């Protein structure tokens, strides 16, 4: 038997796969379904203080090597979300709350509204590339903002704070600032870009918002390099995220230094059961290569 468990902060995961925020995850039932399909942990769709409708469709377009999305953070807002997610303790894997906001007070307000829902950690994306006022479009992906937002949340909660970075630029700098401000883990990372796909028959961008973040296989080598760089720069655990679709991809990302592995876009090509499939493939490789514990491959590339 190979031990597939990993630990991130005080959380025990039965395996390193984590549902990336914004893919499925709109309801407790949806998170539960992802856990039934093998995920080691799940992250909610990002929640804002007030309800948001999100961008018009198409919210997703794909091309040969990847996906573009501009969903625009639709969510029911913190008050209704606190009812929706009131029972996440019933879900048989850790559930992580993704919080978005514009001002520091927004993050506080969302946390306070949802603090009794039994979430096991808070994830904060400073890195969405296609939503005005948020992430890279809201000037949040800087060492200063990372420090401010991390401190704001650390002051009001004992839950681990995971800061989610952009692969675009400044990743190590922002990651180090977040760590210094008390962040308990770094997620590397969000989608890249934004990029654009134009429909050449109508001359118009395909996405409703015009442009959108790049994810999927196209992003994977960049995400691997981001994790590799970060591993040398920070001590806190790293959650690698970007294009992981197979067991081989997960192993690669862990060798670069990731402890947990976010999986999002791969749900399209391999269905929601992708989590079980990735872990089956991983387990086979570990067996063939005589590893007893998955933990032993973390950061191997650096050794």
């Amino acid at each position: 038997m190979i031990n597939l468990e990993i630990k991130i902060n005080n959380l025990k995961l039965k395996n390193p796969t984590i549902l990336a925020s914004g893919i499925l995850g709109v309801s407790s039932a949806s998170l539960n379904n992802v856990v039934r399909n093998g995920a080691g942990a799940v992250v909610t769709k990002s929640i804002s203080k007030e309800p948001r409708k999100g961008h018009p469709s198409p919210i997703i377009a794909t091309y040969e090597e990847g996906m573009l999305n501009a969903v625009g953070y639709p969510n029911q807002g913190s008050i209704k979300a606190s009812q929706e997610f009131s029972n996440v303790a019933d879900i048989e894997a850790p559930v992580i709350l993704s919080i978005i906001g514009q001002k520091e007070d927004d993050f506080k307000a969302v946390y306070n509204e949802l603090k009794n829902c039994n979430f096991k950690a808070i994830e904060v994306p400073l890195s969405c590339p296609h939503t005005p006022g948020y992430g890279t479009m809201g000037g949040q992906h800087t060492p200063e903002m990372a420090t401010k937002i991390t401190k704001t949340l650390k002051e009001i909660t004992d839950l681990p704070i995971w800061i989610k970075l952009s692969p675009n630029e400044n990743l190590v700098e922002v990651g180090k600032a977040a760590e210094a401000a008390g962040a308990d883990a770094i997620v590397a990372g969000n989608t890249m870009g934004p990029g654009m796909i134009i429909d050449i028959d109508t001359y118009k961008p395909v996405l409703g918002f015009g442009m959108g973040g790049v994810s999927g296989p196209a992003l994977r080598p960049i995400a691997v390099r981001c994790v590799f760089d970060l591993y040398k720069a920070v001590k806190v655990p790293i959650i690698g995220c970007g294009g992981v679709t197979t067991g081989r991809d997960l192993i690669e990302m862990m060798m670069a230094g990731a402890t947990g592995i976010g999986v999002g876009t791969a749900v399209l090509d391999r269905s929601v059961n992708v989590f079980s499939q990735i872990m089956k493939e991983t387990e086979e490789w570990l067996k063939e290569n005589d590893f007893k514990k998955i933990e032993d491959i973390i950061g191997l590339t650096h050794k």
Partner: protein
Amino acid sequence: MQHIEQPTIVTVKEVIKESSNFKTFVLDYPLDAKPGQFLMVWLPGVDSKPFSVAWQKENEFAIGVIKVGPYTKELFKLKKGDKLGFTGPYGTSYNFEDKKKILILGGGSGIASVTYLAQRARENNIEVDFLIAAKDKKSIVYEKWLEDQGINVIHRFKKNNHERAWDMFKELSSNNYDSWYACGPELLLKKIVDLSIEKKTKCQVSLERYMKCGIGVCGSCCVDPLGICLCQAGPVVNATFANNISEFGEYYRDGSGAKVNFK
């Protein structure tokens, strides 16, 4: 990626005004959809929304649309020769090939999902009784189109009887049909599903949930308590499956994910 999701652009061949707020858009494209499947229909710069395939021929197909809000208002401005885009077809379809005699109910915009089923059923020489649920005589659509294919069309304004669609459905259901199919107001679908379980009759219904991507990624169409996406597990589901959806006939989620109660 295995799935390339980019719109196909098609020309509007014809616009047919079926009633004051119902239009059929005939589109110039050899679509390969099964009855019950839907498309995400894209108006560049506006939005992309789910619509069933209303019928399909060798080189053209149609969608039937009720004007209900901003998107459908824009869609209604389209004229012959204009272009629009679509992705799909997506979702599950009706099983009918092995049947001999079937009962179909179509109500509201839902009629435009079962018209294609009726077309295919007739092509397979299946006997079809088609009950149209409508609140007034003016909103009866596709009556002649259905009759021209040898379908027995039933609605309350035909005999000037004032029975509600549900009462007429109950009455008809005592005939021996191999299966029932329905798409329309969800509270009516719920009653039909309950009756089919009680009578042990095969039954499929098509359910509408808020759909933004159509490909099982965004989660906007997830249903409680299963947590699965109706853009892939549906829109067409059988009665047992529908009954396992606790929100069926109770509530749905809007574009932000917030619950909205039926009634």
